[in-house]
């Protein structure tokens, strides 16, 4: 990678992050986030329109397909910022849809008039995505679809290709459940929905991109949760001293910081490898280890943040609680730590064979 390329991505990332300030207040204010919880779809359609207008959906669409052709480094920078702000909108899911569909991305989605999300997962606790179709129609289920409750279009990944389905399509039922963070996760049931399938040979890679980008979201979340906790340690007094002066808490805080910086380094180095042409095995392995690192990080920070906040940590009114519940909600998406370790263990055999 040349120095110039390096600067390119940093400049691109800076522009994206700047644009995201429209959605994530720089002062860390979480009023919007708090209010959006447990109402309707759990997210704000206006923000999704803004996301489209800011060009986020085009980030992962190639330039010759009319997109911005940006890389995973820029995507991760965006997701990290959104994670810090606990943004509940299904931005990543829309970006995935656009990345899959490229020039086939529906105009309404591109314009921000319709919210599009990606439905890929065949079953809980596994990364299977080839189900959901039979005999040229959509049949079966897709689970854990983020933002399904407020989406207009679904990009459905199947073994037969990608199908774009409107919410009101005949034979589609959208159900869902509330999540801990105040959002909703969707369950799509297809009863022989007639669709056109768009062939796609990049599904596995788009899922790896998503796994990586989602890790960046968890990184941002953890980073902000740690910052809030450090602030608390500096001001909260017990026994006439700020509790942040107690060595045991200091050492535990440094451990969080180290884990955070490991996550950051792994995620951005992986993004760079993704952007500069890594082979399939490297992509599988590095997406898995970023997700493992980020999920473990988010849960570590959640655990320690609660403990260090003491009684305040277990109230809903303290902002830290929003981070804890979000971490609990998101840590296992795109495969939890158990699955990532299993993926990595399976890769050991390939390594041996190689």
């Amino acid at each position, binding site marked *: 990678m040349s120095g110039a390329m390096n600067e390119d991505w940093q400049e691109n990332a800076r522009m994206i992050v700047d644009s995201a300030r429209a959605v994530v207040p720089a002062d860390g204010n979480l009023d919007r986030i708090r209010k959006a919880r447990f109402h309707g779809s759990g997210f704000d359609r206006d923000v999704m329109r803004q996301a489209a207008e800011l060009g986020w959906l085009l980030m992962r669409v190639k330039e010759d397909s009319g997109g911005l052709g940006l890389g995973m480094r820029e995507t991760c920078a965006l997701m990290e910022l959104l994670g810090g702000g606990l943004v509940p909108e299904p931005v990543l899911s829309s970006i995935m849809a656009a990345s899959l569909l490229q020039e086939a991305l529906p105009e309404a989605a591109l314009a921000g008039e319709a919210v599009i999300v990606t439905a890929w997962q065949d079953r809980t606790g596994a990364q299977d995505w080839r189900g959901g179709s039979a005999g040229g129609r959509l049949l079966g289920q897709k689970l854990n679809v983020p933002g399904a409750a407020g989406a207009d279009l679904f990009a459905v990944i199947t073994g037969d290709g990608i199908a774009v389905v409107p919410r009101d399509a005949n034979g589609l039922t959208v159900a869902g459940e509330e999540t801990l*963070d105040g959002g909703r996760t969707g369950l799509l049931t297809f009863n022989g929905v007639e669709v056109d399938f768009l062939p796609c040979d990049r599904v596995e890679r788009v899922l790896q991109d998503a796994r990586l980008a989602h890790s960046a979201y968890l990184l941002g979340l953890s980073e902000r949760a740690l910052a809030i906790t450090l602030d608390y340690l500096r001001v909260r007094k017990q026994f006439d001293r700020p509790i942040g002066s107690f060595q*045991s808490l200091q050492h535990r805080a440094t451990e969080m910081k180290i884990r955070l910086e490991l996550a950051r380094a792994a995620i951005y180095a992986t993004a760079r490898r993704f952007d500069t042409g890594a082979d399939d095995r490297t992509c599988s392995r590095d997406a898995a280890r970023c997700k493992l690192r980020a999920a473990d990080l988010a849960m570590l920070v959640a655990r320690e943040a609660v403990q260090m906040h003491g009684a305040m940590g277990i109230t809903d*009114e303290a902002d830290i609680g929003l981070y804890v519940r979000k971490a609990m909600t998101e840590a296992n*998406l795109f495969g939890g730590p158990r699955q990532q370790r299993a993926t990595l263990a399976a890769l050991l055999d390939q390594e041996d064979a190689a």
Partner: protein
Amino acid sequence: MISLPDYNAMNDADFRQTVRSFVEENYPDIPRHALSRLHWEEVKPWYLILSEHGWICPTWPRENGGMGLNAGKHLILIEEFERYGCARVNDIGPVMLGPLLLKYGTEAQKAYFLPNILSGDHIWAQGYSEPGAGSDLAAVRCEAVLDGGEWVINGQKTWTTLGMDANWIFILVRTDKTVKKQAGISFLLVPMDAPGVTIRNILNLELEAEFCEVFFDDVRVPADHILGEVNQGWTAAKALLGHERVFIGAPRLSASAMSRLKRIARRAGVWEDPVFRDRYVALQCDVMDLTDLFETYVDKLRGGEDIGADVAMLKIFQSELYQRISDLMMEVAEEESGLRLPPEADRQLHAAATYLSARPTTIFGGSTEVMRNVLAKAVLDLPS
């Protein structure tokens, strides 16, 4: 007063059977095995049934309306209640205040308050913590001054568990600001309907109103609503009875979490997974070893031995173990870890519920950090 047999004279097996039958015959139609506390309106029938039978205050002497149970028998009663999944009643009166009244109360206080606890007419809350006095309880600032034969109270308490259900509260107040922290604290008894008392509920991470803040604004109570001597409240506040210090470290939370973990693992299809099993058996050993350690303290209680500061080890390990079990649950539950409501409407399958309910255990009742400080100094004799 109800006349109860001398349960301590029974052998353990017979007493266990007596308790088991009692529970099976008398437990009302209210939830069993609840993960979070029930409010008074829900749990009231059970309180009143216990009250009717003279079983609401197991450790009080029989002459005061209790069951007069020794530590060993009390443990059996707790075990059987747990086994059946009996809801925990609003037990601050029976468990905390009653013994303190018996030890420090005047005859008039005992005559008035004890029967009201027994009958369920007085439901007590505990007012120790303040926003600036959590782990450092001696830093209380809520104050009371004597004025015309009445205490006038101003200040705030917080983290008052089920305070919204109580009609009385006992509080630590500062009655002398000129002496060192612990020396100027008194212990007052305050009706919640006294003018100037207001409460504000606090939602916890489970989004339930389990505790509240209590504000005191020129609240007046008679001078005799003090427990013990003026400025001697610290002693009473710290007088947690020996067996309570043991029971707070009982393995039951962790043991029951393990059975839920097993169900969640089966549901997730990892019960047969050797990787999962390796971690499961390590936790299972922790629970079994904790149980063995717990039993050594129970044996001491049975033998009438003193319980030292080292008993804090039980609570430290139990609460952290409970959290580690809940961590594994969250991992095994995969995407379902993020659901707000239990899968299949079965709380046992809800990893998040256990995870959240495990959080306060390392914070309340003496935070792990403060207890480790105490252990380091009082037990390991490490320097300050």
